[in-house]
C-alpha cells in the first residue's frame, strides 16, 4: 500500500456531533432539503459518511461527476474502508456553501487534471476507516466487550466470542457520539486485498440517465423563471457598441434585451427558442478591434517563424549536444508536425441559471469546480460568499471547459443582477458554445534526429512553436519566462509526465508564439499534441533506421521500466508482429501524462481516401485500478475524443471561429469507432489519473498505422490536409 505524503487529516474532519437525541442526531450543521434523506435522520459518522438507521450509507463527495465515474470510484474507496453493504451506498454531493460553512472540511472541490480520485483518495479512505472505527467501538460498547473482539462484514458487526450481531444502522447514533480516532492510528486496507474498490462494480448514476430523469443544469426549472439567449463578440476581445432593441419590439414572449459585461448582449424571453430567434434578428454593432484582422493564415505564419527563430526560445531538457550529434550523424531525419485549435464541444452547451436579489445570489450550474463557480458568483454579484450558493449538477460533459473558466456563471449572474428577484436560465446556443470556447492551443513542432550507421538513435531535438495556455490564463505562473507546461510529457526528470526514452543527446525547446484566441485545458491538455509530435516522429525515425517501430522504442526505453511495461502490454495483447489481414497495418505509440503510463496499438487500412480504423488496443498503468470497468469506459471514451485530433479543427477567419457547429466540426460517430480493448496493468505503487492520459496515444498510433499503410507520414492535421477521411 502506498500513501502519499499528504495523509494528514485535519481533526475537524472527524468532529462529531454530541447533540444526539432519539434515533437520529441534531446536527450542528444543516443540509438543505435536497440533500437530506427521506427518513430525515442523518447521524453523521463524520463529514464523509452518514449511516442511516435504515442501513443506507451516504458517502459525501466534493468532486464533480461529468461522466468519468469519479462518484462511483470514490464511493467504492470509502465503502471499502467502511466495509458496508455496497448495495446500500448512496452518493451525496456537498455544496460550496456547506464546504465553506464547515471550514472546507471536504477540501478541494476541483475536478480536473485527472485528479478526482488520485488527489482525494487518501483522506476519503481515511474518512471511511474512521467511520468504521467508531461504528465498531459503538457495538463493542453496547455489548460491553473489547473492540478487538468485534469484526464487520458488509455493514454487519459480529462479536466473535458470542456470535451476536448488530448492523451499522443500529449503532450509528451511538457511534456518532464517540470521539473520532486519531487519523494516524488508522490502517487502510491493502489495495491488493480490496473487496469493493478495485472491482468492476456498476456505476451509481446509470438508472436516471437511461430514463431521461437525470437533472442537468440545463434542465433547471424555477417558479417565475425566464430564459436568456446570449451572444458575445464573435471576435475575441471585441466590445459591444450598440444594439437596436426597436427591431424586436412587439415580438412574442420577449421580455428584455440586456448588455452583459462590456462584450455581450442577451435577449430574455418566456421560452429559450423565442429568445434565441430574437437574438439572431437583433442588429448588433461590435467594436472588433485589431483582432478582426487575425486569421488561421496570420497565426500559421507566426508559428512558422517560431520554428526557426532565435528569439524568445528556450531549451528545457538539454542533455549532451543534440545539434552537434545530429549534424554529425550518418543519417538525419527531420519533420515538422502541425496540430490545429480544437473545441471542447460538451454535449450540454454552457449554461447557468442565476437568481440574484439584494441579499442573496444563487446559481444552478454544471461545474468542474463548484467553488470556482461560487467565487465567480460572489465577484459578479458583488455579494459576499456567505450570501451566495451554488447548486452543482451532474455535468453533460466537462473535458476542462467547465473548470477554472467560469465565464458562464459570470454572464448569468451579471444578467440576473439586472433582473433582481427573477431566476434567469441562460443557455448558449451550440454556435455560441463553439465560438466562445477556450480552445486546445494550436502548435507546430519541428523534430530532428540523428542515427548512426547501425540505425541507433544518437541525438534527438525538437522545438514546439505554439500558443501557451499559461500566457493566456495565468502568466505569473511562467517562471523566468520559460513556460515548461507547453512541453508536457517531454520532461527528462521523473514526474507526472516524463519522457520514456533515453537518448544520448536530447534537446527540447519551446518557442512561445501566441494568438488572440482564448486557450485552455482540453482533456489531456498538451500531452495531446506533444504525444503526437514525438510518437509519430519516432515512427519516422524507426523507419529511417530500418527497424521495427516497437523494437526501436524498446531499445530506448530500458531505463524507463514502467513506460516499457505498458508498451509491452499493449504490444502483447495486440499480437504485435503476428500476421494481419491483407491491407491492414499496425501503428504503435506510448506516452505519459497525469502520472499514468499509456500505450496504444492501432490496426488500420487505407483505401483511396478512406481510412478505416479496425482495432485499438490501449494499455494503461494508473497505479491503482479503482474500478476496471470505468477505467475501460474512460479508455473507450478517450478514443472518440482523440478523433478530434484526426478530423476536426477550429479555424479562424476575420478574428473569429468559423467551425461553430457539428456540420463543420466533425465529432466521432459510432460507425467510425474501432473495436477497442483495454489493458489495465496497475503496479500499486502510485496513484495516476485515468480520464485524460490515454487520449494522447490514440491519434499517433492511428497515424503511424496510416504511415505503415501508405508510406507517408501524416504530419499536417487534420487528416483532410492529406486528402484522407476516417470512415
Amino acid at each position, binding site marked *: 500500500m502506498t500513501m502519499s505524503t499528504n495523509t494528514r487529516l485535519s481533526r475537524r474532519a472527524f468532529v462529531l456531533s454530541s447533540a444526539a437525541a432519539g434515533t437520529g442526531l441534531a446536527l450542528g450543521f444543516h443540509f438543505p432539503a435536497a440533500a437530506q434523506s427521506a427518513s430525515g435522520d442523518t447521524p453523521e459518522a463524520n463529514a464523509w459518511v452518514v449511516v442511516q438507521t435504515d442501513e443506507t450509507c451516504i458517502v459525501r463527495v466534493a468532486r464533480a461527476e461529468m461522466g468519468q465515474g469519479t462518484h462511483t470510484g470514490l464511493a467504492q474507496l470509502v465503502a471499502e474502508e467502511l466495509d458496508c453493504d455496497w448495495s446500500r451506498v448512496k452518493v451525496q454531493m456537498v455544496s460550496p456553501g456547506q464546504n465553506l460553512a464547515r471550514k472546507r472540511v471536504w477540501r478541494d472541490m476541483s475536478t480536473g487534471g485527472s485528479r478526482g480520485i488520485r488527489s482525494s483518495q487518501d483522506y476519503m479512505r481515511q474518512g471511511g476507516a474512521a467511520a468504521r472505527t467508531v461504528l465498531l467501538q459503538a457495538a463493542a460498547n453496547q455489548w460491553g466487550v473489547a473492540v478487538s473482539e468485534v469484526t464487520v462484514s458488509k455493514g454487519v458487526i459480529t462479536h466473535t466470542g458470542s456470535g451476536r450481531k448488530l448492523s451499522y444502522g443500529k449503532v450509528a447514533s451511538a457511534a456518532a457520539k464517540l470521539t473520532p480516532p486519531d487519523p494516524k492510528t488508522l490502517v487502510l486496507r491493502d489495495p491488493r486485498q480490496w473487496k469493493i474498490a478495485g472491482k468492476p462494480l456498476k456505476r451509481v448514476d446509470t438508472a436516471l440517465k437511461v*430514463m431521461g430523469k437525470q*437533472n442537468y443544469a440545463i434542465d433547471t426549472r424555477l417558479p417565475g423563471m425566464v430564459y436568456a439567449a446570449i451572444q458575445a463578440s464573435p471576435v475575441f476581445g471585441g466590445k459591444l457598441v450598440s444594439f437596436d432593441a426597436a427591431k424586436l419590439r412587439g415580438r412574442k414572449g420577449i421580455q428584455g434585451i440586456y448588455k452583459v459585461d462590456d462584450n455581450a448582449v442577451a435577449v430574455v424571453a418566456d421560452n429559450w427558442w423565442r429568445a434565441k430567434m430574437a437574438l439572431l434578428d437583433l442588429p448588433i454593432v461590435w467594436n472588433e478591434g485589431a483582432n478582426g484582422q487575425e486569421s488561421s493564415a496570420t497565426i500559421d505564419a507566426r508559428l512558422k517563424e517560431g520554428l526557426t527563430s532565435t528569439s524568445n526560445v528556450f531549451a528545457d531538457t538539454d542533455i549532451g549536444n543534440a545539434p552537434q550529434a545530429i549534424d554529425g550523424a550518418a543519417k538525419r531525419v527531420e519533420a515538422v508536425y502541425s496540430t490545429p485549435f480544437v473545441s471542447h464541444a460538451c454535449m450540454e452547451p454552457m449554461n447557468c441559471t442565476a437568481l440574484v436579489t439584494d441579499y442573496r445570489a444563487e446559481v444552478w450550474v454544471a461545474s468542474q469546480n463548484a467553488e470556482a463557480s461560487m467565487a465567480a458568483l460572489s465577484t459578479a454579484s458583488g455579494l459576499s460568499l456567505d450570501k451566495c450558493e451554488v447548486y452543482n449538477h451532474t455535468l*453533460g460533459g466537462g473535458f476542462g471547459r467547465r473548470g477554472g473558466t467560469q465565464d458562464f456563471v459570470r454572464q448569468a449572474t451579471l444578467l440576473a443582477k439586472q433582473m433582481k428577484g427573477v431566476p434567469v436560465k441562460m443557455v448558449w446556443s*451550440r454556435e455560441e458554445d463553439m465560438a466562445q470556447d477556450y480552445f486546445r492551443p494550436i502548435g507546430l513542432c519541428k523534430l530532428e534526429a540523428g542515427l548512426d550507421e547501425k540505425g541507433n538513435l544518437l541525438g534527438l531535438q525538437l522545438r514546439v512553436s505554439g500558443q501557451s495556455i499559461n500566457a493566456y490564463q495565468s502568466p505569473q505562473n511562467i517562471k523566468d519566462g520559460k513556460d515548461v507546461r507547453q512541453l508536457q510529457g517531454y520532461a527528462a526528470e521523473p514526474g507526472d509526465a516524463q519522457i520514456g526514452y533515453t537518448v544520448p543527446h536530447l534537446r527540447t525547446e519551446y518557442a512561445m508564439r501566441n494568438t488572440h484566441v482564448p486557450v485552455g485545458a482540453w482533456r489531456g491538455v498538451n500531452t495531446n499534441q506533444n504525444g503526437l509530435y514525438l510518437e509519430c516522429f519516432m515512427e519516422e525515425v524507426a523507419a529511417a533506421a530500418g527497424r521495427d517501430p516497437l523494437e526501436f522504442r524498446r531499445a530506448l526505453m530500458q531505463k524507463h521500466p514502467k513506460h516499457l511495461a505498458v508498451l509491452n502490454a499493449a504490444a502483447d495483447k495486440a499480437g504485435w508482429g503476428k500476421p494481419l489481414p491483407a491491407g491492414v497495418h499496425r501503428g504503435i505509440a506510448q506516452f505519459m501524462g497525469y502520472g499514468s503510463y499509456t500505450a496504444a496499438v492501432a490496426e488500420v487500412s487505407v483505401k483511396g481516401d478512406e481510412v478505416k480504423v479496425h482495432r485499438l488496443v490501449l494499455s494503461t498503468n494508473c497505479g491503482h*485500478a479503482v474500478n476496471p470497468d470505468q477505467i475501460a469506459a474512460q479508455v473507450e471514451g478517450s478514443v*472518440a475524443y482523440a478523433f478530434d485530433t484526426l478530423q476536426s479543427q477550429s479555424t479562424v477567419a476575420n478574428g473569429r471561429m468559423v467551425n461553430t457547429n457539428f456540420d463543420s466540426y466533425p465529432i466521432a460517430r*459510432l460507425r467510425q469507432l474501432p473495436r477497442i480493448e*483495454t489493458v489495465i496493468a496497475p503496479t500499486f505503487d502510485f496513484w495516476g489519473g485515468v480520464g485524460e492520459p490515454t487520449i494522447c496515444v490514440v491519434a499517433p498510433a492511428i497515424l503511424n498505422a496510416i504511415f505503415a499503410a501508405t508510406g507517408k507520414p501524416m504530419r499536417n492535421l487534420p487528416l483532410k490536409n492529406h486528402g484522407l477521411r476516417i470512415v
Partner: protein
Amino acid sequence: MLKLNINGKSHEVDVEPEMPLLWVLRDQLGMTGTKFGCGIAQCGSCTVHLNGEPVRSCSYPVSAAVGQRVVTIEGLSKDGTHPVQMAWKALDVPQCGYCQSGQILAATTLLRKKPKPTDADIDEAMTNICRCGTYQRIRAAIHLAAKTGKGVGSVIHMVSDAGEIIEPTTAQA
C-alpha cells in the same frame, strides 16, 4: 392552440407553429428528458419518436407534430424497464449521460425495424453524437437487447504487476 399527443397524453400549447418541438417539450411542457445539443439536427440529443420514427425535435416544427403520436424518453417506459434501457444499464453505457435519451430512442427504432441488427445496421442507424465516446457500449447494448449473441462490449485485460493476465478477457454481450 395546438393539440399534441405526447406519451399518450393530450396537451394544448399556445405557440408559434414554427417553434421546434424540442422547445415546446422543454420550455412549455417542462419535459426535460429530451435534450438540446446542436439545434441543427446533427447530434440527435433531441431525438423523439413520431409515430415510432425517430425525429430530431430541435429542427421539427411543432405544427408538424399535431395529430401524431409523440413519444419521448419519459414515455418509453414507466420505470426504466424497456429492454433497451435494461441493456443500457447492464453494460453501464452512459458516462455523462446527456446524449443517452436520444441514443436510446434511436436504438429502439432500429430494433423495432431490425430485431436482429448486424453491426452494419447499427452503424447506419446510430448516427447520434456521444461526446464521451460510449459508442462501443452502445453497440454492445443493442446486441444485448436484441439477443443477437454478437458484438463486442468492453474488452478488459487485467494484467498483474508481474506481467501476467490476472483475469481472463471479459467480453460483454
